[in-house]
């Protein structure tokens, strides 16, 4: 253990943890309003990353139905990121219309909504595979323009390297978190969303269009999912259409760790899991994928409502 290792791990953990946080926020927003986990969120994450890729690179790769086709333009990365996130928001809305609204209209068992969202995830991911093939895509290195690949600091004769993409991730995620906090607490729409989350029936009596707010929630959730997908994709590359599955499960660990439906909880959970993974000693790096789930299992047994969750008292 030395100070450089600790500092490096801290930066790595903060950067990845902040992406986990914004990804998990998408789950939490939907959960707080509908009380249902949207299992298609991982698919939206993947699709958002691919949308940004297409906008920034201008083509759709070498395989699948869209092979060889290209867009007539290429966007600079910040615009592509914005565009990809908005498209992912649109996909989030699509998920709501296909998987959740028909069931809500019938007052069906929430368990069925879970399965239908898994069905929609299957449709989205396989459509994607159909269109762009199953191979791995890497964002080209020139995507961040003239920015250097990494910043290197020398400390105590040891090298501390911070990749530019990590800093971008951290800045974008923090900006997004602050924007969301402002939106939820300071704007009329955010307050209406909170009211809907608290009690949809009362909210609708107060003149809030519940269906419209549910749709907006799915849009915001999808956009956050797509944004985080792009950030992870830009950092590690897009590992095929099933890229989102493991992040989708990890995101579940994040929100339960923080407390289901709690926005600060999702942020805390994301950072805790990101840092937990980063501080894992190198000898145990093969166990990295288990960190989130071991933490989840432990917290569920010790404090089922999560770190910042409220204890619900069941009424008879």
């Amino acid at each position, binding site marked *: 253990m030395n100070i450089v290792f600790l500092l490096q791990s801290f930066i790595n953990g903060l950067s990845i943890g902040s992406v986990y946080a914004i990804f998990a926020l998408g789950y939490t927003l939907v959960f707080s309003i509908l009380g249902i986990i949207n299992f298609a969120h991982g698919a939206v994450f993947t699709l958002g990353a691919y949308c940004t890729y297409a906008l920034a690179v201008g083509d759709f790769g070498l395989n699948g139905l869209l092979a060889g086709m290209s867009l007539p333009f290429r966007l600079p990365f910040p615009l592509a990121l914005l565009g990809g996130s908005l498209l992912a928001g649109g996909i989030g809305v699509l998920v709501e219309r296909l998987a959740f609204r028909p069931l809500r209209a019938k007052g069906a068992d929430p368990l069925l909504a879970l399965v239908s969202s898994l069905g929609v*995830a299957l*449709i989205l991911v396989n459509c994607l595979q159909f269109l762009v093939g199953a191979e791995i895509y890497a964002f080209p290195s020139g995507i961040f323009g003239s920015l250097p690949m990494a910043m290197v600091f020398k400390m105590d004769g040891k090298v501390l390297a911070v990749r530019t993409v990590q800093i971008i991730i951290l800045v974008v995620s923090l900006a997004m978190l602050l924007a969301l906090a402002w939106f939820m607490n300071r704007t009329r729409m955010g307050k209406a969303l909170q009211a809907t989350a608290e009690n949809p029936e009362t909210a609708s009596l107060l003149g809030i269009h519940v269906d419209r707010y549910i749709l907006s929630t799915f849009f915001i959730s999808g956009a956050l999912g797509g944004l985080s997908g792009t950030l992870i994709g830009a950092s590690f590359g897009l590992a095929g259409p099933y890229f989102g599955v493991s992040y989708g*499960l990890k995101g579940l660990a994040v929100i*339960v760790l923080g407390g*289901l439906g709690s926005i600060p909880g999702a942020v805390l959970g994301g950072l805790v899991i990101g840092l937990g993974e980063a501080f894992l000693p190198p000898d145990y790096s093969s166990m990295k994928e288990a960190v989130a789930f071991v933490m989840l299992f432990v917290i*569920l*047994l010790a404090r089922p409502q999560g770190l910042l969750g409220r204890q619900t008292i069941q009424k008879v």
Partner: protein
Amino acid sequence: MFLENYGFLIVAIVQQALLGMSLWYPLMAGQLSLASIGFYSMGGYIAAIMGTSPAFAAWREALGPALYPVEWLIALAASALLGLAVGIPALRLRGIYLALATIAFVQVLNVVVLVLDVTGGAVGLFGIPQPFESRLGYLWFFGPLLAVMLIFSARLTRTVAGRSFMAIREDELAAQAMGIPTTFEKVRAFVIGCGLAGVVGAMSAPFLNTWNARQSSFDASVACLAYVLIGGARSVWGPLLGAALLVALPEVLRPLKDARLIMNGIVLVVACIYLPQGIAGLLASLRRREVA
């Protein structure tokens, strides 16, 4: 000819129906657990290790074909014990929290399997001895188990244990107030499912000939849940009907090639919207209409 071509499919339907059923028991007690696939994976590894590892060569020599039932018993005992160890703390959780805890359990198990040497790491184990020449032969494994489980399930709905499960599903607090030991009953339903999943795993390792971490992917968990819900969670026939539909569907749709998985997703969504009680519920309502 038909049996030659479709032998694998028929056995796969029965095998998957049994897996669905392992999830059906906790669901009967109102507990959504996605742990089955983990116990299935563990049972499979037990059979795969006993079938291939040099350490068990003497056992294979001595037992001959009796090795298979021994594997089933060991898988049953191991799954039931681990199920008990996981179930007692986990079943304090309700609803989605339990589902997430069981997902976490399976994910941790997967990482452990990938790290250990005895399970063959990411490559897995292969060349597991096969007792039957033809695929259809495996019905001698799965068929009787399915028959026993169907009879057991049908009987269960008429026993005190089964009725307690259903009481907990309808209203856990009310069931507790009636004097039903809810924790005990929930753990009992969970352990029955775990044991069954373990045995199915031990039977499946020779059938599939190879065993690896992909057997317990999240997709496989989802598939099990889908069999039960699409078949009908309230009927003992549900898992079988659901597995028959969802396992056969990709084969029937083979001409669609890559689009068939998309069709699978569409079937899931449409079934959730239009068949909330599953196929079994649809059949029951058709029968009622005829009578009236």
